[in-house]
């Protein structure tokens, strides 16, 4: 029953989305709002229902498993769904951001809005699928399912230079996706498990570990493949341009949820299954992660365009997640998970608010903005809170995520120096965050773009509701992280607990060797 519900969180938005594309617009002019609302509300309800059904008492592992053959049995590919403590928070994140984004899109006055909503719903269905897949093939498959609509949305409804940007993004992301696909196939072939199921793979690898060279080769494929998808430095250049050009709901779903796919893949699959490979590449994880924080952080400071600034800041924050992964500890992995959820919510909120702000000023250029506090007080409050959350003010989930990651780094004596460098990032984000608040919210109010539309100025209900949803989730998790951490702990212990010991042994044997030398 619950497993059928889990599956329905994928097919309901898909069916609703594709039916929206097929209904003639004359017939659908009234119905389309209800159809799309139902399509995005269903996964949200299912996700929370499953959250309460999720049993804590188990040893970790997947619940609500759903197994269905699609005819690729000979390759060991099944539509195998399920949730564990790591995927559950992201599953809920996808449903929450999906609801907010589609609700916001309902009132966006886009041309051909039916097609727009239909693509958003299809994207949502892919997102729900990717975070609930146990089968690696479908994990990848659903990701692509969500990725393609985002390209099309940029091409049709994007901003300036959308065609060139969509093309660049397509090439970059296809490259990343293909690299990780090859990595996944290599994992499947080398493990000898003859199945793409994550469970069977980890069992097979536990019995017959791969050699260190093979592990590190496969990990490299996954690391760089997934890294491109997460906008790892220096493969990040698609992200700011892409998000700046994307229509706001598409940017919310892409930056908020879809981009988490890469880190989720590293967290759930690559590092637990290939610990030695990950260990061999950990200097790269740390170096590139730091580059994301410091270099992209400095670039973010230089942005004058509000949407560009948010895009760059989202690239920058991914650096903390890479650092967290490089600690190979339960604590670090837990911090990454928290940060993923928190960042997803906060960046989606920021993209949404930036579009709302654009509607007030008719520009994204921060130097031409000012006095939003007087023009639209409610919107300013939301904006200030969202920026505060994003730069890591205590009380919001982002703070906890970053804090836990720092704590995990501090546990490793050899990594202390990383702490000092990454602390720079906190200052950098405080600088650009506060400066943007100063530019946008305070200062003398510029003339409204049209005097007649004064009543448009403050936030409408359709803007408030999704903003409240996202901000509320951020605060709930920030104040009460136990909500997710309890459920995630067992799985993190299961996946990362052994690893800590293995790594300790490795480092001990390294030390012994050094002593012997």
């Amino acid at each position, binding site marked *: 029953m619950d497993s059928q519900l889990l599956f329905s969180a994928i097919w309901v938005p898909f069916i609703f989305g594709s039916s929206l594309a097929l209904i003639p617009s004359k017939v659908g002019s009234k119905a389309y709002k209800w159809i799309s609302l139902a399509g995005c509300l269903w996964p949200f309800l299912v996700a929370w229902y499953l959250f309460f059904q999720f049993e804590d008492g188990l040893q970790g592992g997947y619940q609500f498993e759903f197994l269905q053959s*699609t005819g690729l049995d*000979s390759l060991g590919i099944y539509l195998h769904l399920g949730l564990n403590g790591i995927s559950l928070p992201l599953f809920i994140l996808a449903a929450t951001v999906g609801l907010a984004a589609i609700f916001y899109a309902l009132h966006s006055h886009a041309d051909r809005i039916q097609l727009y909503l239909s693509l958003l719903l299809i994207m949502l269905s892919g997102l729900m699928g990717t975070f609930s897949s146990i089968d690696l*093939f479908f994990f990848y498959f659903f990701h692509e399912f969500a990725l*393609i609509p985002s390209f099309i949305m940029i091409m049709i409804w994007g901003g300036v230079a959308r*065609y060139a940007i969509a*093309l660049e993004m*397509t*090439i970059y992301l296809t490259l990343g996706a293909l*690299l990780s696909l090859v990595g996944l196939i290599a994992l499947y*072939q080398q493990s000898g498990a003859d199945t793409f199921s994550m469970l069977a793979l980890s069992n097979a690898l536990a019995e017959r570990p791969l050699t260190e060279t093979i592990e590190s080769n496969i990990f490299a494929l996954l690391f760089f493949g997934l890294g491109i998808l997460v906008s790892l430095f220096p493969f990040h250049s698609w992200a700011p341009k892409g998000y700046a050009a994307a229509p706001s709901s598409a940017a919310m779903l892409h930056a908020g949820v879809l981009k988490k796919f890469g880190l989720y893949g590293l967290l759930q699959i690559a590092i637990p299954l290939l610990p030695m490979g990950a260990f061999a590449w950990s200097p790269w994880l740390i170096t590139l992660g730091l580059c994301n924080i410091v270099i992209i952080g400095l670039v973010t400071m230089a942005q004058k365009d509000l949407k560009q600034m948010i895009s760059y800041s989202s690239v920058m924050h991914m650096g903390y997640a890479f650092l967290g992964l490089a600690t190979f500890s339960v604590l670090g992995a837990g911090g990454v998970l928290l940060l993923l959820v928190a960042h997803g919510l906060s960046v989606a909120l920021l993209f949404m608010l930036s579009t709302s702000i654009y509607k007030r000023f008719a520009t994204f250029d921060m130097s031409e903005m000012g006095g939003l506090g007087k023009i639209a007080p409610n919107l300013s409050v939301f904006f200030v809170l969202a920026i505060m959350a994003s730069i890591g003010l205590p009380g919001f989930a982002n703070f906890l995520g970053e804090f836990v990651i720092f704590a995990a780094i501090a546990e490793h004596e050899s990594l202390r120096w990383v702490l000092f460098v990454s602390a720079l990032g906190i200052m950098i984000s405080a600088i650009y965050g506060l400066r943007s608040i100063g530019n946008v919210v305070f200062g003398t109010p510029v003339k409204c773009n049209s005097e007649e539309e004064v009543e448009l100025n403050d936030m409408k209900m359709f803007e408030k509701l999704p903003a409240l949803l996202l901000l509320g989730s951020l605060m709930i998790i920030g104040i009460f992280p136990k909500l997710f951490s309890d459920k995630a702990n067992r799985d993190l212990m299961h996946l990362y607990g052994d690893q800590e010991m293995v790594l300790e042994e490795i480092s001990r044997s390294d030390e012994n060797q050094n002593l012997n030398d």
Partner: protein
Amino acid sequence: MTNGITSFLQELSLSNQWLVLLPEISLALLSLVLLGFDLFGKASRQAVLDEFKFRISLMGQLAILALLIIGRESFNQSGSFLFGGLVEQSDQTFLMRCFFILGSIFVTVLASRFLSKANLPKAEYYHLCLLACAGFMLLVQSAQFVLFFVSLELVTIAFYILVAFNRTNALSLEAGLKYLTLGALSSAFLLFGIVLLYGISGNPNLEGYTSLGFQFSQLQEFIHLNADNTIVRVGALMVIAGICFKLGAFPFQIWIPDVYQGAPTPTTAFLATSSKAAGVFVLIQLLQGPFLALSEFLIPILSIICTITILYGNIAASGQSNVKRLLGLSGISHAGYLLMGIIASFLIPESFVAVFFYLCLYLLSSFLVFGLLIQISQEEEGQLEIGAFRGLYSKNAFLGTMGIIGLGSLAGIPPLGGFIGKLLLLNVAFQAELYWLIGVALVGIVISIYYYFGWIRAMLTEQESEEKAIAISFEDRIIYGFIIALIVLLGLIPGILISIIQ
């Protein structure tokens, strides 16, 4: 002595089971019937007659396809000795025969749309198309080089005419001439290779010599014992060169852009799908049969060919704005991906599943794209540029979807069927440990995204001027809609086709 010969001849004539070739024979008869219509039909009712000929050809082929599938037991006798060893059937050849009839049905549909637009004679085209299809079907079943060569020539000669079919068009004539000269050259290569193999296998000084040097099975044993012989190697290489011409693999790809551009669009589609598929299958058959013992010698050579083919096709296509040339060049790269599967078939016999799946999806997607070309083109379809597709989606959403699905599947984007095809190919390449080729294929796929998406992008751009919307008939909507649904379905549930193949 005479007794021996008589009994041999008896055995031969007993093995002539004409029934198993009934589908091919009916295709040939159908093609003659079509010509008969022109002989007796009245010129005043040309339009009705043309439509009638199209229906007859289409229905006939559908009936033959149904006949072949329903009577599978009688038309596909795996493992029995047929026509004195000329013909050999297996489940794989059965699949390929179905594939070719399907391909020729698609070409017939495309041709009926194209020929009435271009005002060209119909019956001859359908006639040649059916003959070429029968030739393809014989080709894949031949187990002996004489039949192999004869059926290949049947196909090639039909294509000489089909390519130059548009006689008033200079481009088409040029394409015909190019195809003729280069096709003749490749036939010469092939024949030379066959003769070398035949000659050397009859040399009594060599171990295991045989007087039946045309026979694949005899040749396999002979080559197994003499794999190091230079003449054997040269002969095998020449045969492969002849086939690479059909496949459009480097260095025999040079004819492709010009011929694809100049040939009438249905012919281009035919060349791109059936002709390429025939080359792929024949190559697999030869590599798993006579040339099996040469694997150590051939794998490096084929790998080099595959690498250059993938890179050449994709790089050349990325600078192209003429759509037919682009399709030709990207077709070269598809031949490269298929070659990867072919090389894997040396080591992993199951790779046929992957290759055949890829071929089927390539056929379906190409059909959509070429169908779109015929719908769009005004007069000079050889000059059609990507720019002509600008704003297609807003002009006609159905045609736009058709193009996006077709191109998306060619590019291998999930959830479309083309993605599963690429995945299966990559998977067998992994099993065969062809890591280098996998890397090259990845580079190729990423480049291909550039030009396929450039095209899709053009379709999605907004309409600049108020041009009139393009219409598409209800019948076409049903045909193409069915293919679109099939491509999506095969991407979501690929098991349907895979279980059929296995």
